[in-house]
């Protein structure tokens, strides 16, 4: 198997195909330390994991099918070949044990990165995450650190079966002691993964499955944003829309459509779900006076609800309309044949923007 990797020099446009190099995936050892690469998120995550493992021998991978197969999404592809089966552990099929033994390894000084195969499979490990992992440092009165990353591919848009398209981030954001993040693009995936592994706190790392494959430019020289910073990814003046993970591309599409109709929409990529960086959100609301929060997750008791409440507490007089939420419905994720009706679309985001602007 080989992959075509397009490299480019910072500041210069990439001549399409001109600098394409063909290399077997396992020779990515020659990853350049600078410059940019055009990668799908899966390969950006892979490169981030690989870099973290090279930087720190205490970093371990744990999970189901992450060894020779490279994970069901191939995010860990080639890692076992480079680092061996002592650092890339294909585990028995038991999520609670993956998390629970990762806690023991962290107490021993390791920095485990656990792969949960799909969003809906995290719940057998939920007790170890919320009752143990999240509280270990607090219970030890600050005498230990818990540098454990739990990677969870999440979200819909992939037409899959039950338990394979869910967005359970609110459960984890509700749990003190955890940090929760989700990149929306390949560049952030590469950097946020390394920053999450470097964190001395447990990080739940939600990877938006539907964004696994589109390629994006990864600047290998610098991240540009700290792990927990939200970021304006499109400037606008009439309304602000906020989302994370796969929702960001939906919001950008909505903003593009709105622009064609003469409405200027500012798009904020949340990036971090816990803690939430309200600075850019409040600054944007000060400018636009209108806020729409969008998410694939169920709206009831959700991250979007939290943002809406907080913005109303902190910036009531800046708002010209109620903060509106666009969410998945409060139903189980439906059969894939009707998922497009369930998932927030650019049109549903536009409908909410129109409602906000009509106040």
């Amino acid at each position, binding site marked *: 198997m080989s992959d075509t990797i397009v490299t480019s020099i910072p500041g210069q446009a990439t001549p399409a195909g001109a600098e394409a190099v063909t290399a077997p995936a396992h020779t990515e050892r020659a990853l350049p330390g600078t410059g940019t690469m055009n990668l799908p998120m899966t390969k950006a995550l892979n490169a981030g994991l690989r870099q973290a493992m090279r930087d720190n021998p205490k970093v371990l991978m744990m999970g189901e099918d992450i060894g020779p197969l490279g994970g069901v999404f191939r995010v860990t592809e080639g890692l076992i070949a480079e680092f061996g089966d002592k650092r890339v552990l294909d585990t028995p099929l038991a999520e609670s*044990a993956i998390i629970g033994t990762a806690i023991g390894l962290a107490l021993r000084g390791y920095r485990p990165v656990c792969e949960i195969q799909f969003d809906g499979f995290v719940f057998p490990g939920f007790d170890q995450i919320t009752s143990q992992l999240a509280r270990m440092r607090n219970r030890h009165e600050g005498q230990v650190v818990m540098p454990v990353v739990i990677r969870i591919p999440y979200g819909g848009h992939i037409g899959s079966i039950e338990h394979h398209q869910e967005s359970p981030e609110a459960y984890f954001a509700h749990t003190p002691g955890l940090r929760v993040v989700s990149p929306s693009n390949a560049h952030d995936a590469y950097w946020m993964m390394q920053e999450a592994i470097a*964190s001395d706190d447990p990080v739940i790392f939600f990877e938006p499955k539907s964004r696994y494959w589109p390629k994006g430019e990864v600047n290998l020289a610098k991240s540009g944003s700290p792990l927990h910073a939200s970021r304006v990814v499109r400037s606008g003046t009439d309304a602000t829309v906020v989302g994370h993970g796969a929702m960001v591309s939906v919001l950008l599409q909505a903003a593009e459509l709105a622009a064609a109709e003469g409405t200027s929409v500012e798009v904020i990529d949340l990036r971090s779900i816990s803690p939430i960086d309200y600075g850019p959100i409040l600054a944007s609301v000060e400018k636009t006076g209108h806020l729409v929060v969008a998410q694939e997750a169920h709206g009831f008791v959700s991250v979007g609800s939290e943002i809406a409440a907080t913005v109303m507490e902190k910036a009531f007089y800046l708002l010209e309309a109620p903060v509106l939420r666009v969410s998945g419905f409060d139903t189980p994720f439906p059969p894939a044949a009707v998922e497009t009706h369930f998932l927030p679309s650019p049109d549903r985001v536009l409908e909410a923007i129109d409602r906000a602007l009509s106040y």
Partner: protein
Amino acid sequence: MSATSNASPTVQLLSPEGVFAPSDSAAEFLPYLDRLTEADYRRFYRDMVVVRRFDTEAANLQRQGQLALWVPSHGQEAAQVGSAYATRPQDHVFPSYREHVVGMIRGLDLVDILRMLRGVTLGGWTPEDHGNFHLYTLVLASQTLHATGYAMGMQLDGATATGDPETDQAVIVYYGDGASSQGDANEALVFAASYQTPQVFFLQNNHWAISVPVTRQSRTPLYLRAGGFGLPGTQIDGNDVLASYAVTAKHLDDARAGRGPALIEALTYRVGAHTTADDPTKYRDPEQLAYWVARDPIVRFRSYLQGLGVEREFLDAVDEEADDYAADVRRRALDIHSPEKAVIFDNVYAEPHPLIQEQKAWLDRYEASFEGGDA
């Protein structure tokens, strides 16, 4: 077989009457007794007596409103003392929440356990400064996985199975018959077997999970479950401190030598209540209690020591020491003070977290806003 042969699979060295009468199944463990001197025997006895007296004192403190709860270990002293003395300094111990004397033997001040039960901390001590005795874990069987992961880390570090028993490390994890039904306990056995961790699972079958008898947890003797996971399993008379020592010593040595994990089921009895919030008279047969009280581990070992010629003065001195210890514990328990309210916030995260910082500052301002506010 001789007339005195004991063909039970349960490893026993001392009869309930305190006579040295090893079961046939004890043969492979007997050499481990050679490591013990009479001074060790005296320490075993002393620790069992002291912790039982401590146990009574702690229950009294709870009844007097000085502790939120107490978790007695009465009846399980032999299982705990024998297994704890079988550990080596470099080992790590993951308790459940009833292994007070194990902590004491590993160097923990038992008043530190009372801190948690007095409600001033969620933990109570730093494991690395207290004989690698890890924190109590209140969600049953959760610690079995932490122990297994820790043992995996020992392997990755090359800190075990080098061939030097003086430095090779191992893990012992304590849990019980109730916890044996938890998924985590079973997943820990799966992982331990899969990675061949240097680890002993020490299962104290005290016959009761609060009000539910062990017969509800398992239709098979619990030590036989080990075989299904690919581990050796040994059942011991858990009220026989020498059996607990010898069997644990063998399995820990096997583990540290790279021969993999093992499970020990110690048959014992929770003579007291589950906790001070429990009332075992509502669900337990007095005859069962009487049967086990008659097999008391301390009485048994005292009889054995007396048979060895240990003088009365020693036994009396131990009782006096236990009383003094209990009085000291009482005095120091009453001297445990509440922490500052900052503990609510300070150790939730290792790195700064704006929401927590904001809430901490708000609480300070709020409480200072009242007359006489202290912030």
